[in-house]
């Protein structure tokens, strides 16, 4: 084996990146809370570890989540990650099978072709190894080619906007892109001189570049390859490519059940470093697609949080609609991180609402809570109450005389201490009603009740509750051929995972059509989000109009939604398609069915409830 100093840049880089990764992993794991460490120990030798390994292979090597988004984009990531991984694995195997022993320096397999020109000692494996090495090199270089193409035409890969990278990312990116062309050059030159390689490098060396002064190119090309590798490794820990070693840790921590908490923690650091700044979140964001605000998305927010502190604008310019959360291929809990970051800059004091003392809700069995937004849309309240009446539910409208805000708006704005007062107050008042079930028309309230109130009674959004009643046969609706498109409210669909009940309920009365693939968990946002304060009314209605445009087509009679805020926002933005809450549609269907049964029986029923129905009409 002839030693040569060109391996030094690579060796330094590799040592550095390995040391850095080990140190950072240790720091992150050590800094986890005692409880988290305990559950990790407990679950270390369970099936969760196997699942972690499987996910690491699936996401780390094959990038399945990116494949789901776009095939070419997925291929690009897969070819780079899997191709390079296989080159490393095969190189190591090859070097270890070579009959001179298993122990060799780390640079030896990487520059194997430099050290060994004659692979015949590998005997029957020679052919397959040289072929596979060339094949995976070709795979990687095709990925680099696509990546280069993506810089100029990212739309082909389904990305309208990509991240604008900072200097260190550009340095790392350039080094990464140079590694493989240099490797091909070095191996081709070697193939040209010593007839090594297979269909790819051998062909290049023997048929294409044989006319060049290969003797003079030999050492420089290996130097260039080593320097590119070394500089990539040195830049890696400070650039976005830190996601490569971090994501493995993240996957395992997540599998063991570690999650984001109410404030930044060690796990947050793992998540921040696991962000590859791929920019997929940018296209999922309404602020970018509808308003052209493309510099506040998680990719930038997380970057700034990782290196220092994000600006106030970056922190606040987000609707927390959670679309990016669903789009993120790494599965970083972006929304919670942003909320936690906001909570470090609280503006309200924890004694703001002392004036609420001395207020109480009436006693109830089934408590109906309209919430602030519900009170702003009396028709939704009226319709829901009518339906509850029709089903014979003994409910009490507990906040008829005014509701205390559930605390969600404060919570979303990071004012957790102020929200805590409202939560405590409301929680006690609702507990004192003695209710055994809580129904609300507002998904924002429902979300807060479920996530932060820790109530012992079941909490239903009215769409869930009404569906349950319909399912039990206590509500019967007249089927009409009204063509309805359903808009999933963010808090209901992504926040609580309620997507089927409203649909089933609607289907029992109208024709439900899905005109967009951006529904259910990927639903669009109405733009009226309470989590953002720095968008103007015009900007909000721009988002709402764009959402309506995607939801409805010219055969849509009506847009149904299940949130008073969504209804208001969507209806205010346009005049083309009427927007109604699910309860309003259902009450109409109920009236129609009553009328039908009345005319059939030709009997005038003297029901006091029905008078209200008529009045409503």
């Amino acid at each position, binding site marked *: 084996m002839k030693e040569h100093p060109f391996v030094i840049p690579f060796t330094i880089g590799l040592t550095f990146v390995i040391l850095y990764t080990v140190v950072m992993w240790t720091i992150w794991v050590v800094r986890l809370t005692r409880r988290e460490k305990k559950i990790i120990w407990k679950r270390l030798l369970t099936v969760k570890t196997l699942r972690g390994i499987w996910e690491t292979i699936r996401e780390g090597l094959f990038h399945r989540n990116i494949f789901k988004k776009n095939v070419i984009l997925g291929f690009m990531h897969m070819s780079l990650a899997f191709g390079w991984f296989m080159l490393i694995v095969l190189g190591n195997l090859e070097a270890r099978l070579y009959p001179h022993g298993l122990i060799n320096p780390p640079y030896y397999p990487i520059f194997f072709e430099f050290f060994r020109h004659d692979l015949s000692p590998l005997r029957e494996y020679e052919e397959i190894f040289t072929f596979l090495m060339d094949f995976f090199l070709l795979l990687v270089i095709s990925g680099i080619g696509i990546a280069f193409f993506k810089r100029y035409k990212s739309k082909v890969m389904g990305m309208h906007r990509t991240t604008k990278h900072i200097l260190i990312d550009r340095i790392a990116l350039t080094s990464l892109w140079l590694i493989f062309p240099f490797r091909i050059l070095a191996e081709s030159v070697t193939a040209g001189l010593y007839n090594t390689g297979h269909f790819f490098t051998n062909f290049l060396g023997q048929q294409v570049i044989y006319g060049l002064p290969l003797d003079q190119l030999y050492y420089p090309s290996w130097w260039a390859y080593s320097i590119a590798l070394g500089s990539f490794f040195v830049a890696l820990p400070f650039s976005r490519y830190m996601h490569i070693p971090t994501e493995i840790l993240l996957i395992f921590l997540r599998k063991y059940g570690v999650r984001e908490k109410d404030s930044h923690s060690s796990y947050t650091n793992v998540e921040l470093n696991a962000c590859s700044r791929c920019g997929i979140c940018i296209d999922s964001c309404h602020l970018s697609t509808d308003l052209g605000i493309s510099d506040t998305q998680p990719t930038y927010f997380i970057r700034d949080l990782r290196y220092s502190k994000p600006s106030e604008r970056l922190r606040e310019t987000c609707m927390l609609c959670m679309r990016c959360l669903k789009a993120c291929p790494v599965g970083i809990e972006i929304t919670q991180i942003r909320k936690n970051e906001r909570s470090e800059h609280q*503006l309200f004091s924890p004694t703001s609402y002392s*004036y*609420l003392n001395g207020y109480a809700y009436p006693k109830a069995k089934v408590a109906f809570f309209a919430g602030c937004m519900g*009170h*702003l849309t009396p028709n939704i309240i009226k319709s829901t109450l009518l339906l509850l009446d029709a089903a014979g539910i003994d409910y009490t409208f507990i906040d008829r005389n*005014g509701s205390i*805000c559930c605390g969600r708006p404060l919570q979303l704005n990071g004012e957790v201490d102020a929200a805590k007062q409202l939560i405590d107050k409301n929680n006690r008042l609702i507990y004192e009603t003695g209710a055994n079930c809580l129904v609300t028309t507002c998904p924002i309230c429902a979300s807060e009740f479920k996530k932060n109130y820790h109530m012992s009674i079941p909490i239903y959004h009215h769409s869930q509750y009404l569906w349950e009643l319909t399912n039990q046969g206590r509500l019967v609706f007249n089927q009409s051929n009204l063509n309805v498109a359903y808009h999933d409210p963010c808090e209901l669909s992504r926040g609580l995972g309620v997507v089927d009940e409203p649909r089933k309920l609607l289907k029992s009365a109208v024709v439900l059509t899905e005109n967009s693939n951006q529904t259910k968990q990927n639903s669009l946002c109405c733009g*009226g989000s309470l989590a953002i304060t720095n968008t*103007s*009314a015009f900007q909000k209605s721009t988002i709402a109009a764009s959402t309506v445009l995607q939801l409805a087509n010219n055969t849509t009679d009506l847009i149904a939604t299940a949130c008073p805020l969504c209804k208001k926002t969507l209806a205010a933005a346009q005049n083309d398609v009427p927007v109604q809450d699910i309860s309003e549609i259902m009450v109409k269907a109920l009236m129609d069915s009553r009328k039908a049964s009345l005319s059939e029986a030709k009997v005038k029923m003297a029901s006091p409830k029905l008078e209200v129905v008529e009045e409503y009409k």
Partner: protein
Amino acid sequence: MIDFGYAPLKINIHDLDKADLSLMDWITARDESFRLCIACGSCTATCTAGNFTNFSFRELCHSIRRGEVEKAVRESEKCMLCGKCTLVCPRNVNTRNIIKLVRKANQNFRV
């Protein structure tokens, strides 16, 4: 001035020339929509917090305009940020942002 034997109460006299309008300027520079308010009071009529206590966004805006900074800061804390006022405002004043700006001003430069 002719003395009629009665005069406005001292506490009711507000000299706008001497008022401290720094808060108003600070807010208007950050949210232009503050200028749009016509003091119709829709915000106050729907207010969740106003249902329980003496809190009025309309009054808060007045306080800001009149330079009653301390009162504005004190009042702003009663808000629950529920957002009903923003939805009902006929002039599209970004009310929640203004509340937050008052709170921020209180923290950032101790008006």
